């Protein structure tokens, strides 16, 4: 059981890190701000989700695991709101391509 857990969380965290790096590559490569914004938020919300998933078994107790999930949900809420507002800002400040 323990081996399976270690493999599972290792895989999840590696995938999470991969998504973060993908998000950053997107930020570096994509031409216009809107597509960058889209890729960035998707990548780091999902990346964080996978990392939290990977950390759940080692969180030590149910309450700590719930707190990790709460952190992730807050980041999702925060990311969604901030992204929409930044998109609004981009739309308003630059003419559509």
């Amino acid at each position: 059981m323990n081996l399976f857990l270690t493999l599972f969380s290792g895989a999840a965290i590696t995938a999470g890190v991969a998504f973060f790096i993908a998000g950053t590559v997107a930020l570096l490569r994509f031409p216009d701000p809107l597509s960058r914004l889209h890729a960035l938020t998707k990548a780091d919300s999902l990346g964080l989700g996978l990392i939290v998933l990977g950390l759940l078994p080692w969180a030590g107790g149910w309450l700590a695991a719930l707190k990790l999930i709460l952190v992730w949900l807050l980041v999702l809420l925060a990311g969604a709101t901030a992204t929409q507002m930044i998109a609004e800002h981009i739309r308003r400040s630059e003419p559509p391509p």
Partner: protein
Amino acid sequence: MSLVLDVMLALAVIGVAGWTLLVRGNFPAVIGFVAYGLLLALVWVRLGAVDVALTEAALGAGATGVLLLFAVVRLRGGKAEIDAATPSPPQRVAAAILCGVVGLGLAVAMLNLPDPAPSLAAEATRHLPLLGVGNPITGVLMAYRGLDTLLEAVVLVFAVLAIWSMAPDRRWGAIPGPLFPVQSSGPLSLLARVLPPIGIVVGIHIAWVGADAPGGKFQGGTILAAMGILAWVAGLWRLPPVASRGLRWAVVAGPLVFIGVGLLGFVIADGFLSYPPGFAKPLILLIEAAMTLSVAAAIVLMVAGPPERPA
């Protein structure tokens, strides 16, 4: 591996700080400064000082960012005078050399500090069970150096008064800060409706948990203040006028309770700000609760600024 992480973190902090200084335009500088605050919070976690990391994260992201952004928006213009006052290149080089020497001296001093590191950790933790408090930093803040924390609570009240005194006479007693239109729909109103309840619970949790784990009144108060500012910025909460009784009581509640319990020390313990042996924790928690309220109120008022609009 942790060494590599520390070096990266250190270079990042210095890089962002340098960038904040050299970038054209106030707006990017403030964004750089908030990033600097975030990185400092990470540095504090690496240094093992989680309480300080909490304070830096809460203050940096929550209150200081908004405060600086308000200033940036209102300080637009004034370009001509700034160029006139920019020091000439030789002056800048001289200043750079001077600051380099100061930095070097500090670095050298930091690298060979006295070998048996003088530390008060032992004394601090030895008396903790007497106080019934688990977190040594709360023990220091509330008991060993209680007077410092009391004076600091009073400093916050004075800061609010000093900011209010900047208002023109005809605006005295008015509502502080600009008017924010009510956001009927859109992401901001969603956030301002969903986040504050969670934030208030988290803020009170962190203020409460401060007795035995990292946390405390300053961190909890700052989070509550940030939630108040969010609701105010989204137009959901109208700041009360400066003259309102409730607001003034909220700001002075913390220091008053602190002084009250301190004076109580004469009667039930052996002096000002000393706690009776078995009864320390309830008193400390009472002070912490009142202080959390006052810190939150003071920070909101400091961000809002002097009274501007008639009631």
